[in-house]
């Protein structure tokens, strides 16, 4: 339980650091590089999205650290075997379905646009490479 509390504290701290550094980087990029309107829009979108997630995380995690009952509930929810199993089974299924769908879409797109076909093929290759790399990592780790 103490480990979990430490983990939550670390997450809150990381969210706070992320918020502050994100704001700093945004202002610095806009001021220093004098980015055009389009780039400013993209930067603002990325920043506001990640800030919202971080602030939401802080407001969600702070009450858990103060209330023992809520902390226990969160601990059970996070370490529940069933939830973990559901997540892992889903991920495995999703990977296979995504690869098959992307392959079919790439074939269909070959009739209309070669760029889309290439992008989808690159997607499939990327998923394959990441899967192999992560499997090799876990093979060494476990």
């Amino acid at each position, binding site marked *: 339980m103490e480990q979990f509390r430490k983990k939550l504290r670390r997450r809150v701290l990381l969210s706070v650091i992320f918020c502050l550094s994100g704001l700093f980087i945004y202002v610095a990029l806009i001021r220093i590089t004098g980015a055009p309107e389009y780039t400013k829009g993209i930067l603002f979108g990325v920043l506001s999205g990640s800030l919202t997630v971080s602030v939401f995380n802080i407001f969600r995690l702070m009450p858990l650290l103060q209330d023992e009952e809520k902390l226990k509930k969160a601990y059970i929810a996070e370490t529940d075997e069933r939830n973990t199993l559901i997540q*892992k*089974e889903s991920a495995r299924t999703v990977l296979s379905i995504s690869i098959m769908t992307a392959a079919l879409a790439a074939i269909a797109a070959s009739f209309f646009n070669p*760029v889309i076909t290439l992008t989808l093929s690159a*997607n499939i290759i990327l998923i394959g490479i*990441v899967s192999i790399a992560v499997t090799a990592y876990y093979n060494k780790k*476990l």
Partner: protein
Amino acid sequence: MEVYRKKLEKQKKICGWISLISFFSIIPIFIICHFNEHAVSLIHVALVALVISLITHSSLKKALKNDEAFKKMYVRDTDERNIQIGKMAANSALFISIGIFIAAAEAARWMNYRAVSLTLSLAAIMVTIIYMLSMAYFRKKL
């Protein structure tokens, strides 16, 4: 062990059908697509499917005939550690891939590759939707 043997026989049959279909689809593809560049890309797909299914078919055939190879394959497929590694790797690979898709979509938008950016964004959205659906499915099932 007997159930596993039946499973392999079923897989071998499916591989055989896939290789037959991909082999006999090459000529109709040429005729339907009137010998244009689409025919070439579709034939590439058919050839890849043919090669993969033939390799799988031959390895399954070898495992079904040779008892030693069958035992090796059985241990590899039913080993708890391997299954656990596969599940964990799929889980990590999924989130890493989504992250890379989003980052690549943003980068492509920055470089004005509209088609690439849209394809990658749609791929990320599709994977997320499939993940949510399969989570809901496994929540009901498990």
